[in-house]
């Protein structure tokens, strides 16, 4: 099984650099990990980089917000074997892809049961996953260190990492938090959101904002109705739901109805 060190690149498109920072934040394992690979292209941490060689593994964070981003993304894809999307921005678009109109659209849809959804065309920034295929997607705003390490170590061993797709509620219950919905009548996105964060927010007595993006097939309608049934106003629901990945949820919830075109 012995192989030569894999060539690795770490790239940031437009974003807050939080995911790259989280890599640097793996303080204990950073140096031993770096020894196992040949990090040839990482602008944030090194001043000597090879921008053209073939890469075995590349991590990409951030959204595509400029033509330049798109170009680099395509170049990275072309030279990489295993491409990993790091962070909610790269996987779903995250906050930069958020748009002011969304709350009203959600409202419209829920109240009038129609779905104009023109806003999808007005989204400025789009996630890299929209443009090129990725082998692994690792959401989180920012990514969780332990998940990054799992991906890195699995790839180094030649295997694909295994993630058990569970909602945040799983971890929230495992930690025995008081449910924000049941006990506090708050809008909590936990049941729709892919876990892995250890239910950070509910563990701090704050409802989940959905920063890790949706699970496959979240029951969007039932969630919204549940909040409304608990007497929470549509405005409040829309406000909470419009953070982070709400645009994606809507797209997922309506997958069968809306198949929007690629923008470029």
């Amino acid at each position, binding site marked *: 099984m012995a192989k030569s060190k894999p060539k690795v690149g770490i790239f940031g498109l437009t974003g807050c650099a939080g995911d790259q920072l989280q890599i640097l934040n793996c303080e204990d394992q950073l140096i031993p990990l770096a020894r196992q690979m040949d990090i040839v292209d990482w602008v944030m941490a090194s001043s000597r980089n090879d921008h053209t060689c073939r890469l075995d593994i590349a991590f990409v964070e951030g959204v595509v917000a400029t033509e330049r981003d798109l170009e680099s993304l395509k170049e990275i894809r072309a030279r990489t074997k295993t491409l990993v999307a790091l962070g909610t921005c790269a996987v779903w678009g995250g906050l930069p892809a958020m748009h002011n109109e969304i709350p009203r659209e959600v409202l419209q849809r829920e109240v009038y049961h129609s779905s104009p959804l023109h806003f999808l065309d007005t989204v400025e920034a789009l996630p890299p996953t929209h443009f090129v295929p990725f082998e692994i997607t690792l959401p989180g705003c920012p990514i969780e260190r332990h998940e990054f390490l799992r991906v890195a*170590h699995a790839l180094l061993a030649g295997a694909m990492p295994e993630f058990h797709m569970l909602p945040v509620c799983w971890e929230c219950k495992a930690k025995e938090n008081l449910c924000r919905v049941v006990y506090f009548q708050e809008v909590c996105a936990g049941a729709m959101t892919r876990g892995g964060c250890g239910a950070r927010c509910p563990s701090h007595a704050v409802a989940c904002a959905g920063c890790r993006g949706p699970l496959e097939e979240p029951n969007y309608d039932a969630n919204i109705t549940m909040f409304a049934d608990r007497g929470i106003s549509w405005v409040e629901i829309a406000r909470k739901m419009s953070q982070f990945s709400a645009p994606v949820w809507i797209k997922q919830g309506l997958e069968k109805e809306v198949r929007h075109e690629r923008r470029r």
Partner: protein
Amino acid sequence: MQTFRMNASFLPAFMEALKRWGTLVAPVERGAGTYVLQAIDDVSLARPDALRTILPFKKLLLKPRFAMLERRDGGRTEEVFDNDMGPIVYFGAHACDIHALEILDLIYMTDYVDPYYRRNRERLTVVGYGCMPDEYCFCESLGTETVERGFDVFLTPLGDRFLVTVCSARGDDIVRANPELFEPASRADTRDYLKRLQEREQSFSLAMDVTDLPYVLELKREDPVWDEVGKKCLCCGSCSMVCPTCACFNVVDERPELGRAVRARTWDACLYRDYATVAGGHNFRADRADRVRNRYYHKQEAFVREFGKPSCVGCGRCIENCPTGINVVEVFKYVRGEL
């Protein structure tokens, strides 16, 4: 079985004495009238009256996530003892919990015995505590409102004293080691106990008809009620997490650090989408409705056929914890056409 009485003022002393048999774990208030099972040192924190803890005692036997096996590069795969919790005294088990424990035993101690479960199980001392039902309890319907085995000691509060039932050699050890706490039960104690039993019977407000339920369910397999519940369910899995008898798990392989591979085990729930997916992407229960139905059928139909009794003990945890308000009892009433 032996019966004694204990003065209510001896409770703290009794709990202190229990520490000799392991880490004392009891319900503790977490806030807003909710409780968690927790190891305690200060016995005054215990709230054995608490009806439900967020997670049931099953976490004392199998952690929500633990490592089963480990292998260091170049070495052999070895069993690890991440899940071993040492001797534990579970104080404050209610009748339904004790029934649930028996169900877990049926799952984990028959055929191939699960060594991770067994090690904790063998070192678990169960001290029961009599309770009064609230609006979510429906154990009476399932015949789990009383227990006659499966515990070591059981305390039934009778005002200024407890009726103490001893049901195992270990329970007997506990009593014999603390003779100053116990005295023989009197006729008055028996009378009060029966009175309490009656009172308790009358205080159930939730009930569900389980007559011939497995067959009724078989007849109702294609009922639209399942689609309705499926539409409402978030598949958040909270109901399974909090259920004392839901015991499914998933196995994940990972490499948490260089040179170390771990095979870990996490609680799983049949409500999660990937639960029944096989290679090639085929999902035997792709619809939410199928998954919700599966949970109910497994508890009230399949388990009955396999082990002769349902695997629901009527503790009401899933009713209390379902964010979207799905209620087992109501669901079954619908199924029977009562609603």
